[in-house]
């Protein structure tokens, strides 16, 4: 029982004439799978995530998510589609510095629909931050900030989670905490796309796609489970 959730067709993105960060990529991903994306720096990993995450529009080609051709949507429609379907986890966490951990999560609720504080507190408890609700980002460790970011990504219950180097700024111990969380989310049925430079992390998923110069150079199913 595999259901396609994301399909990219002849996807091309170019910023200027010479660089083609994404060059004619056609690929699809199934619901509930964890896809890792690896590749050298500048190979187009982040660009690809931006496109799937409705943060950017391709130059050519189409993207279907859950049957919707998002490449046909306008700016505001994209925004609304994103907040319903996609959660984003960033290497730099991007917490709003003047808001507390809880408020950062509440903000995502606010822009999505309505604010429900107990739900937001639950989300933070799930990532193990029940005791850090009133702290501003400056008073949280990197790992804690990343967990706030994850709680924020999850609060609106998106099907798809996109993570760009989520452990890139974390030490091993904190990185493991975050990866454990992501694994749990995978088990809960979220579709995960994770960009990483670390081959060990790359192997954690169900599938590993390697990008070189904007093209898919290898696409491997991973069977070994930890």
């Amino acid at each position: 029982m595999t259901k396609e959730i994301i399909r990219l067709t002849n996807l091309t993105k170019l910023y200027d004439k010479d660089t083609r960060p994404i060059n004619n990529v056609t690929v699809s991903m199934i619901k509930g799978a964890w896809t890792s994306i690896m590749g050298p720096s500048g190979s187009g990993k982040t660009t690809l995530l931006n496109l799937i995450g409705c943060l950017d529009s391709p130059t050519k080609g189409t993207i279907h998510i859950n049957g919707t051709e998002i490449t046909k949507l306008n700016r505001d429609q994209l925004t609304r589609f994103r907040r319903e379907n996609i959660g984003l986890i960033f290497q730099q966490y991007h917490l709003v510095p003047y808001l507390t951990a809880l408020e950062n999560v509440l903000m995502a609720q606010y822009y999505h629909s309505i604010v429900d504080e107990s739900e937001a507190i639950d989300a933070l408890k799930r990532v193990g931050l029940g005791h850090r609700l009133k702290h501003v980002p400056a008073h949280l460790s990197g790992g804690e900030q990343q967990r706030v970011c994850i709680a924020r990504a999850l609060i609106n219950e998106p099907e798809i989670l996109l993570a760009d180097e989520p452990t890139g700024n974390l030490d091993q111990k904190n990185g493991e905490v975050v990866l454990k969380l992501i694994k749990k989310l995978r088990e809960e049925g979220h579709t995960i796309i994770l960009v990483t430079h670390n081959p060990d992390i790359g192997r954690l998923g169900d599938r590993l796609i390697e990008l070189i110069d904007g093209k898919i150079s290898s696409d491997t199913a991973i069977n070994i489970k930890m």
Partner: protein
Amino acid sequence: MFLRILRKSLSKRKSRIAIAVISVIMGAAIATALLSVSLDVSEKVGYEFRKYGANLIVVPKSDTIEVGFPGVDFGSVTEQRYINESDLWKIKTIFWRNNVLGFAPILYQVVSVGENQYEQNVVLAGTYFNKDVEIIEPYSLDDPSIFNTGIQKISPWWKVNGNWIEDQNDTTSSMVGIKVAEKLNLEIGNIFTIKYYENYEGLINETIYNLTVKGIIETDGNEDNQIFVNLQVAQDLTSRMDKVHLIQVSALCNACPVDTFAEEIEGKIPYAEARTVKQLVNAEMNILGKIEDMMFLVTIVALLASALGVMTTMTTSVIERQKEIGLMKSVGAEDKKIAFLFLSEASIIGAIGGLVGYIVGTVLAQFIGLSVFDTSITPRVEIIPIALGISVGIALLASSLPVRRATKVEPAIVLRGE
């Protein structure tokens, strides 16, 4: 939640916001100050207008002498003809009679005061102070038959030390101009002597008359050099019964044509000529208009400066907060929500600036009033909404460009490193 975001985003960037608020304060303060001053001053011009008291002067016709105002150049008055005191009531029988606030006749005579070598000439002016004039044939039957009038009514701005002459039959009191009082060393209650020389077919006839100083007048005008007595005293002294040189008429005339007034009075007293003194006030109004134009320009410049201040702050803020904007968009904020957040910030900056600016401006208005116009300026609550409106408007306007910029921020930047 929105309010929480708004409050925190403002309070965490206090110094930046302060700069914007201060620039709004300055603009709003200057606008408030100049508005208060100009409102007050134009009101005071109305007062000034009344200060001229008479806006019509009635003199005998074909009178070639120059009638200076508010005093009269006495040298050329001696030869002239007169207006009959018994015709004065007719002024109150014109169509616009209810707009005639008051009138006062004046009979001038040079008299001499002081002894021997200190003897000097002074103008004695006989007039009404507080006189009941009988309206012999009222315009309408409903009109009162007695009209109380006098110089006090048409010149309420006179600074009087001591008292006005209240009794219309008082023949011993006088009110002396301050300069006369200084020259003759007169104080309230003093009695002094005036001498009137009459040249009667080559014979000089000297009449001596004693007057008590009831009040000392200060007007900064010709009145300061004159001695005022009841008309009757001046007439008796110079044997010119029923005669006056001129009549000062005070007509309250906002809409009605002063020229019509003049014509009507001439109709009632055919041998008289009524002259308006509107020109004087017009000149004054002109200068005021120019001052107001200038204030308007200064206000515009000040508001432009505020707008620039707000724009700079907002632009910096948008650039600094690009990541935050991108993040808000990535979690689902549409462009209009981003715009709303920034415009709300601008409104708050504008509102605080406007309110504080109003207070500062009111204080500033006092300084301007005292140092430039020599009067205090009444603080006006009705300017608050104006100041607020202008400030918020300016802040919003000045933010429109930075806000456009904020809505243009691409959410894709959140995935890109620095």
